[in-house]
């Protein structure tokens, strides 16, 4: 299950969603909005998500993880919109009989999500400036 959410991520609810009586090992990854990046102090984060494709690609990532590291349950939610420091930006949870697959599948999912999904992060700095992450070489050169 992959979802994009414009609301605060309900981690308790998501954790319950990967319960299975056969599960013995559970690995959860959370990405939190942190107050620093590359030496600058961050005040807020903003995620832009192109939802139709993000949902499709997100489901593909989970299906591929299931092929590689068979597990029992997995889900992932990614935020869109404005986040305060400490807010959960992405939640990935995997439960399986044993811990090895849970760790590996969880890591695979978050790594792939960061590479493949049409999601962009804008940092708002305390000095009032803002910037799109990973975009040093796009647009700046031709900036108006």
């Amino acid at each position, binding site marked *: 299950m992959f979802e994009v959410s414009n609301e605060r991520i309900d981690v308790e609810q998501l954790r319950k969603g990967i319960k299975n009586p056969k599960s013995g090992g559970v690995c959860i990854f959370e990405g939190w909005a942190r107050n620093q990046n590359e030496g600058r102090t961050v005040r807020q984060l903003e995620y832009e998500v192109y939802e139709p494709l993000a949902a499709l690609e997100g489901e593909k990532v989970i299906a591929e993880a299931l092929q590689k590291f068979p597990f029992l349950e997995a889900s992932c939610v990614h935020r869109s919109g404005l986040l305060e420091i400490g807010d959960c930006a992405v939640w990935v949870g995997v439960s399986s009989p044993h811990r090895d697959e849970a760790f590996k599948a969880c890591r695979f999912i978050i790594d792939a999500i960061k590479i493949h999904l049409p999601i962009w992060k804008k940092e708002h700095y305390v000095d009032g400036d803002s910037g799109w992450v990973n975009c040093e070489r*796009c647009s700046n050169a031709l900036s108006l």
Partner: protein
Amino acid sequence: MKKITVRYFAIFREHAGLNEETLELDARTALDVFELTQNRHGSIEPTGHCKVAINDEMADWSSAVSDGDTVLLFPPVAGG
């Protein structure tokens, strides 16, 4: 000439000052669309970091575009 709807995302949208526009373009591939709209999105380096989708399916820069297609131009992603 083909009628192509181009959608801009994130920094491309901010640079272009609009979400999308429909243009008459002499474009054979997605890369042609990228280059022909360079004055809008402002990026000088498509391949490797930027991505493209055609009609809501991820595509390659060498993918052919047809009359009536919607081409989505994605700056480098940063999920998580």
